[in-house]
C-alpha cells in the first residue's frame, strides 16, 4: 500500500511528538516515583537529626552537612581555576599548540568516568599525599571532575560576548584587564553561572568518586580533614545494602528537591541581577 504525502506527514508528526512525550514521561515518572516514596519520610527531625543505627533510624543531618561541605570545597578550587583557564583561552591567546593541548586535556577530562576520578583521588590524595578519607580529598577529586565543564561553559559564555563591547571598552582607554573585569565578565556571568550550577548538581549527585575519596563515615564532620558521607553515598549504601529503603527514598527526594531549588534559585538571582540593567 502506498502512503500519500499527507498521511506520511501525519505519521511523521505523530512519531516526533511521541518521542518528545516519552522523554517527558520518563522524567516525570522517575521524579514522581521518588517523591511519592520519599516525601512522606521527609520531616523536620529527618533533616535535623543525625543518622542512628547505620541509618536505619534517625535523620540525615550529617550527610547534608557533608554534601554541602564537599561541594563548597570543590567549587572553591574549581571555579577560580576553571574561569581563569576559560579567560586565558578566550581572551589571552590565539589558536596555538598550547591552547589546543589545553582544550584537548579539558575535553579528555570531561570524558573520563567518575569512578576513575575516584580511583585517582584515592591513590593520589588519600594514599600518596596522606590526606586519608576526607572532605578535602573528596572536594579536590570533585574539583578535577567538574573543571572541564566549568572551563567549557565559561569559555563559550566569554566568546559569546559581542566583540563590540571589547572595542568600546578599549576605545575608552581601558586596559585589557579592566576590559575583562568590568565589561566582558559582567556580560558573560549568566553563562558562567549556568556552568557552575551544572557542576554543583554533579557534585551533589556524585557517588563513585566520593565514596573512594571522602569515605562513608556517618558522624557529623567538624573539619575538612574528616571523612564524611554525602547524601548520594548515603542513599547508595542504604539502598544497596538493604539498610532502609524508606530512608533511602527520603534522601533521594531531598537530593532532587535540592538540585531543583539550586537551579531555579540561582537562575532567578542571576536574572534579577541582569534584568536590572539589561531591560530594553
Amino acid at each position: 500500500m502506498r502512503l500519500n504525502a499527507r498521511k506520511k506527514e501525519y505519521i511523521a508528526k505523530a512519531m516526533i511528538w511521541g518521542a518528545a512525550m516519552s522523554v517527558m514521561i520518563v522524567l516525570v515518572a522517575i521524579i514522581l516515583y521518588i517523591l511519592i516514596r520519599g516525601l512522606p519520610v521527609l520531616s523536620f527531625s529527618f533533616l535535623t537529626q543525625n543518622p542512628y543505627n547505620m541509618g536505619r533510624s534517625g535523620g540525615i543531618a550529617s550527610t547534608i552537612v557533608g554534601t554541602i561541605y564537599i561541594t563548597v570545597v570543590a567549587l572553591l578550587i574549581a571555579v577560580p581555576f576553571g574561569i581563569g583557564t576559560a579567560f586565558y583561552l578566550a581572551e589571552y591567546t590565539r589558536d596555538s599548540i598550547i591552547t589546543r593541548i589545553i582544550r584537548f586535556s579539558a575535553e579528555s577530562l570531561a570524558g573520563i568516568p567518575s569512578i576513575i576520578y575516584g580511583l585517582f583521588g584515592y591513590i593520589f590524595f588519600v594514599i600518596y599525599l596522606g590526606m586519608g578519607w576526607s572532605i578535602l580529598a573528596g572536594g579536590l577529586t570533585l574539583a578535577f571532575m567538574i573543571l572541564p565543564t566549568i572551563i567549557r561553559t565559561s569559555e563559550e559564555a566569554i566568546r559569546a560576548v559581542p566583540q563590540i563591547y571589547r572595542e568600546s571598552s578599549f576605545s575608552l582607554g581601558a586596559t585589557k584587564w579592566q576590559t575583562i573585569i568590568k565589561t566582558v565578565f559582567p556580560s558573560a556571568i549568566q553563562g558562567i553561572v549556568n556552568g557552575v550550577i551544572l557542576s554543583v548538581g554533579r557534585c551533589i549527585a556524585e557517588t563513585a568518586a566520593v565514596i573512594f575519596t571522602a569515605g562513608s563515615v556517618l558522624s557529623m564532620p567538624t573539619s575538612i580533614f574528616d571523612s564524611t558521607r554525602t547524601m548520594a553515598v548515603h542513599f547508595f549504601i542504604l539502598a544497596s545494602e538493604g539498610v532502609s529503603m524508606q530512608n533511602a527514598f527520603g534522601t533521594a527526594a531531598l537530593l532532587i528537591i535540592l538540585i531543583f531549588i539550586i537551579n531555579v534559585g540561582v537562575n532567578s538571582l542571576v536574572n534579577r541581577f541582569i534584568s536590572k540593567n539589561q531591560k530594553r
Partner: protein
Amino acid sequence: MENTQKKVKIKTKSVNLFYGTSHALGDINADIYENSITAVIGPSGCGKSTFLRLFNRMNDLIPGVTINGQVLLNYENVYAKDAYVVELRKKVGMVFQKPNIFPMSIRENIIIGPRHHGIKKKADLDIIVERSLKQAALWDEVKDNLNKPGLGLSAGEQQRLCIARALAIEPEVILFDESCSALDPESTMRIEDLMTELAKKYTIIIVTHNMEQAARVSHMSAFFMIDDEKIGRLVEYRPTGDMFSSPKDKRTEDYITGRYG
C-alpha cells in the same frame, strides 16, 4: 570654510597598512587640523575605517595587522615602541557605527572610562556625568533617569550617550565611524549639530557614506579609493567646499556626483 592656517593636530607620514598580505592602505600622507571636522569619504572597502582606526590604534586588535610609517599626534609618533596605547586612547575617543552602550545604567556607562583612569570619588564622577551629558546635549532628557538602563533609550539618544561616554575621558580628538548610518534623519541632524559644537573644543574626524553630511558639517574632506592593485589610496584631500565645488581628480568627481559604481 578654510582651515589651512590652523594648527596641525595629527600628521600621517607614509603610512602603509597590511592585513596579512593584503595591502589595505598605501602611502598615506595627511595633516588633520585642530578644532576642525575632517570627513573621510569613499566607496565601501576603500580603507576609510581602517584610516580612522589608525588614530586610536584600534587596528591593533585585529590579528595579522602590520603598520609602518608614522602617525604623529601632537608631534609624537603614536606607533613608537615606547608609546602606551592606553594613554593614546585617553586622548583619542571614538564613537562607533552602531550605538554600543554597555548593558548598564546611563550613569555607569559614562563613569566607566573615568573610573578606569583612577577617578573614584562620587562627587568628581557626578560632575563628569553632568558635564559630559550636557556636552552631548542629552542632559535634559536623562537627568532624572541616570540610574535607568542605557538600553532603554532610543537609538539616537543611545548614540549621544556614546558621545557623552567618549567625552567623559576628556579626549583631544574624537573619531566618528559612520556614527549616523543607523539613525533616523532627525537624530542625524542633532548629532551633526553636536559635531559642529564640539569642533570648537575638539578635533573631529568622521567617516561617512553620506555625501550631504560630509558637505554639511566638515571643513576638510579626504577622498579614499582603491587603485588597480586594490590598495587603499588617499586620492584627494582638500577643504570640503573646494572639493565639492571643483574636484581635481576625475575619480573624486565621479564619486561625489554619484556616477561611481
